[in-house]
């Protein structure tokens, strides 16, 4: 190789890159790893670059199984293979992978793949000895035999089996015996697995660090052996309805190594059970009690020995002020607190909690509808280091309070103000948070272009902006954003009815844009979208539902330029057969929602879905089901595509102001 290289250099002395050793080029390549397109450009420069890039690449995310043999030959050093974008992975593909990659492969993601069986898994487990990570989530058709095949991967450390509903204790037993090195196993929704299987995992796999047992029909019987695991750090018992206080009370000792505990939705565990579960777990850092027992004084008191606690999530719990105050007293080093949708959060409780926890970094008070500006004043006063504040639908918070946020919490990176009373003054103040990367201003009817312009001018790091139904926004605001925030990746301007093509033309300068949603913007046309297609080559998700003026003219440039597009919604637009068939040439396209297209004929639809080989999900009107032959659907389903049928009448758009009014009628 080296000789070859020197030969090449003698031939073209002008290429300085040839003087660099491979290691240095690899290091350079490491830096351009962030954007896949950059790597692609690099590899297309010349042959030697192509070879270097092939050798350097470690991760692959192929879109079709048909290409696997070739790409695996091209990239010999791949160790992580993500097949979640392949609609169809059969045993043949797994055989090819296992025979080509052999020992170099150490991680494979089959979480959304279907059509493979235990044969493929067996070949994978036997040939790829260094496999440490397998994701088999959503493999709903796999049975115990497949689990037995997985058990042959003796070096496996991480295994996800979420929603493998047919795998029973027998299969889990095989895995427990076979994969002794397991550190992480997720059995979420494996509803056929009971105490016996879980207990055997705990007995046989002593290295377990992380255990996800969500929604398993397990009882107390397997808990003692689980809690005896020496290294267990993270345990998720979400929705384990079989575990109750009585059984937990019998536990003599908790797990000392435990760092994260999740008993969300465990309806039968109260503070009594919780305290026996966390007794001895002095190093607990994360506690998640979402939709679980009421947060009362008693519960808060059971947390008193957890001095290391950093994160508490109480989403959806009934909360008392006394409980919150007590949590504030016991846990003073919290960095993350979530009270999302908690009932009973008042100014009193929240303010006493936040005044004790001055180091709070993340706070979620979504839908705490009782809190007012007082809470916000306390929060902004004590928690000046906040990086994330989510306060969707805190309807009693007045507009003045948002000024405080901008004044005092200037390290904010994520701010969710959806459905609040914030106005332009507030936005102007918030624009001081120069680190802001995600800003959600959906259904903020009091803001206008003026406020948004401030954000656009100062928040240069903004990557995500949500303006859903903020009807006061028009082109001026969007133009300010697109000028000031070149790194914008996601924008949602749905139902901002005043938006026109001018906004889209300016947004087309944001080359990193990958998600573009503009539902119900009647003024934007094919011209604007074409500009987006040309400018934003990284577009992955596009939603132009109810943009009546967008038609086939926009689809052709999209098909040509946006080769990364994966998801598109063209319902209620003016796209016809022609446009849809053009879209079908996008090889990445996986999901299509095609409802109420006036210009769409059954045969045009059939041609489009047949031509688009990578489709995994198509949403169609029921009307087409009878018009297209059943075998066509069967064929497409065999290819890995799922059809979802909708039977909704054509809906005229509501008046944007009226939407808000309606909503207020519902929630008094």
């Amino acid at each position: 190789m080296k000789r070859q290289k020197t030969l090449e250099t003698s031939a073209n002395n002008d290429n300085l890159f040839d003087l660099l050793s491979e290691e240095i080029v690899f290091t350079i390549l490491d830096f351009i790893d962030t954007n896949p397109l950059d790597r692609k450009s690099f590899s297309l420069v010349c042959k030697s670059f192509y070879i270097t890039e092939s050798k350097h690449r470690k991760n692959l995310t192929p879109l079709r199984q048909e290409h696997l043999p070739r790409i695996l030959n091209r990239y010999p050093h791949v160790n992580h293979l993500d097949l979640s974008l392949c609609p169809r992975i059969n045993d043949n593909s797994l055989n090819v992978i296992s025979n080509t990659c052999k020992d170099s492969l150490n991680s494979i993601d089959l979480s959304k793949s279907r059509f493979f069986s235990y044969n493929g898994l067996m070949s994978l487990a036997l040939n790829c000895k260094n496999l440490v990570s397998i994701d088999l989530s959503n493999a709903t058709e796999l049975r115990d035999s497949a689990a037995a095949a997985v058990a042959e991967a003796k070096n496996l450390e991480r295994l996800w089996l979420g929603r493998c509903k047919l795998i029973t204790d027998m299969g889990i037993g095989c895995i427990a015996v076979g994969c002794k090195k397991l550190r992480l196993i997720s059995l979420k929704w494996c509803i056929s697995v009971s105490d016996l299987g879980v207990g055997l995992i705990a007995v046989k796999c002593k290295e377990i660090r992380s255990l996800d047992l969500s929604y398993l029909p397990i009882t107390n019987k397997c808990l003692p052996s689980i809690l005896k695991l020496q290294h267990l750090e993270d345990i998720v018992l979400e929705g384990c309805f079989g575990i109750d206080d009585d059984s937990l009370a019998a536990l003599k000792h908790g797990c000392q190594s435990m760092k994260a505990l999740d008993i969300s939705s465990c309806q039968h565990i109260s503070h009594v059970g919780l305290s026996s579960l966390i007794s001895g777990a002095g190093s607990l850092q994360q506690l998640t009690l979402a939709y679980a027992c009421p947060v009362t004084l008693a519960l808060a008191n059971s947390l008193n020995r957890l001095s290391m606690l950093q994160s508490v999530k109480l989403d959806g719990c009934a909360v008392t002020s006394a409980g919150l105050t007590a949590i504030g007293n016991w846990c003073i080093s919290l960095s993350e607190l979530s009270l999302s949708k908690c009932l009973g959060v008042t100014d009193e409780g929240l303010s006493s909690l936040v005044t004790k926890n001055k180091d709070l970094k993340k706070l979620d008070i979504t839908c705490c509808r009782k809190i007012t500006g007082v809470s916000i004043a306390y929060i902004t006063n004590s928690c000046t280091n906040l990086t994330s504040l989510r306060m969707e639908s805190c309807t009693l918070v007045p507009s003045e309070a948002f000024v405080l946020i901008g004044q005092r919490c200037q390290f904010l990176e994520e701010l969710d103000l959806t459905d609040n009373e914030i106005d332009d003054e507030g936005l102007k103040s918030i624009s001081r948070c120069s680190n802001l990367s995600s800003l959600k201003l959906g259904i903020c009817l009091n803001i206008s272009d003026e406020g948004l312009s401030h954000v656009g001018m100062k928040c240069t790091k903004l990557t995500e902006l949500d303006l859903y139904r903020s009807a006061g926004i028009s082109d001026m605001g969007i133009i300010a954003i697109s000028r000031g925030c070149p790194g914008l990746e996601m924008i949602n301007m749905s139902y901002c009815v005043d938006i026109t093509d001018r906004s889209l033309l300016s947004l087309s300068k944001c080359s990193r844009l990958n998600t573009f949603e503009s539902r119900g913007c009647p003024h934007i046309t094919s011209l604007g979208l074409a500009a987006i297609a040309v400018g934003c080559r990284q577009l992955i998700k596009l939603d132009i539902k109810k943009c009546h003026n967008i038609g086939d003219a926009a689809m052709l440039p999209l098909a040509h330029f946006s080769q990364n597009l994966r998801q598109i919604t063209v319902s209620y637009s003016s796209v016809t057969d022609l446009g849809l068939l053009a879209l079908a040439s996008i090889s990445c396209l996986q999901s299509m929602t095609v409802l109420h297209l006036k210009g769409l004929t059954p045969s045009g639809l059939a041609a489009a879905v047949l031509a688009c080989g990578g489709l995994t999900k198509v949403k169609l009107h029921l009307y087409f089901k009878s018009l297209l032959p059943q075998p066509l659907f069967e064929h497409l389903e065999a290819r890995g595509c799922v059809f979802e049928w909708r039977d909704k009448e054509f809906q005229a758009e509501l008046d944007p102001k009226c939407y808000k009014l309606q909503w207020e009628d519902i929630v008094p």
Partner: protein
Amino acid sequence: MEPNDRLSLDAWANPSSSCNGLPRKMSLENPSFTNFNLQQQEQKWDDTSILNYGIRIEPPFLEFNQASESEYLLSSTCNNQPKVLDQEDGLNNEALQTSKSLDWDPRTMLNNLSFLEQKIHHLQDLVHLIVGRKGQALGGHDQLVTQQQQLITADLTSIIVQLISTAGSLLPSVKHKLSTGPPNGQLGEFLFPPLAGMNCVPQPQHGSGSKAVQPLQHGSGSKAVQPQCVTGSKVSDQCNQMDVTGSFGTEQNLSIEEHEMKEEEDADEGENLPPGSYDILQLEKEEILAPHTHFCTICGKGFKRDANLRMHMRGHGDEYKTPAALAKPNKESSLEPVIIKRYSCPFAGCKRNKDHKKFQPLKTILCVKNHYKRTHCDKSYICSRCNTKKFSVMADLKTHEKHCGKDKWLCSCGTTFSRKDKLFGHIALFQGHTPAIPLEETKGPSLSCDKMDGNEASNKSGNINFSFGSNAGGGAQNIIEVKEDADDPASYFSPLSFDTCNFGGFHEFPRPTFDDSESSFSFLEAP
């Protein structure tokens, strides 16, 4: 000398074999019986039956053998009772060692001698014990003392006998004489091995050893005593004696009896009828095994049920047609005080036999029948499903057949379990054992999946061709062609030309998927 020696070897090996649970290897020398003999020996020293025992020829003795064998079976099947096992294990392991060390060489002799030595020590201890007891003597123990004396004499005798036989094995001239000669000598041989086995527990028996044993023994003894009283005081004497001598060989005995107690299939364990409060009936073997148990006194016809007999009797005359004659006999007599009937097994030596020292009666005739068939008869009913399990009672077979083959929880080691939790307990216990996935399942999905991949797709594409073809009015000939290369996506499109589907005007559009299909085609050919 040969028979003699072999006999002794048998005897030595006996405890070990019982420990290993090998019922086939069971020899005559059931410890319980040696014990039994030991006691009989004192009282009727020159009883012929004992002589027979020694010579192993006479029928009654053989019967004993059978009985003892059955008891062994019981004990060996129930070996997993922890309490008893501990003791038995300890003892038997040592016995095992000694039996291993035994060979056709002077070491045997040495062993014998050392055992003799231990036995003398042991006897010494016993005398100590008696001396100690005398100090705190209570009323009514005279009998006890005499028993103890008898026991000591018996022991001494056996020591002498053992000495003689040991000496005899050295001298070829004596050998012959001994083997034909005094049966006592052989008896001694018989008595010895189990005792020697016991005595391997070296320390004084009434110390740690007897303490551990005594309470248990009392438990089992007291239960057994009551029925024995029925049969005579001689036996109960023996029983008492055993209580005292505890350390002598009764341990083995005890363990076996414990097993028996637990194992008994008839549920009269808890019943503690005072002796004499019930009549004991003993049916003969032929009666028990006869298919019919109720015979017409007039014509001799046999019936399985009394009710049927009564119905039959109507044919023999009007006197049998009265309601009184037809009614259940029990109901008539219910006015009178009911005499409880209990049954004895005709098999001599069986615990259910009334002559057994710990006799436990059987409640009903059905119990007798089942007991006799289960314990003393061949197992002639073979399960037709597994062809391994044998039963002597038809009902047992039927019960088994209900569950046979349902041991679906299979371990990789081949063990089957009827319950999943038992399997998982087994797997948790042993390294390297894994649950075995049933064969149908491993086969099933694999085939179906392969079919899914290949055939299903082909079927579907075929179907598409068909329907589209019919739409177009004649594409049926495509079906076969497509089915051949079913997995090739390209074929999906070939018959489905846009023309036939009336897509009209779409020709000029790019059909990028065809690129993919080409590659996929090559992919399919590659391997």
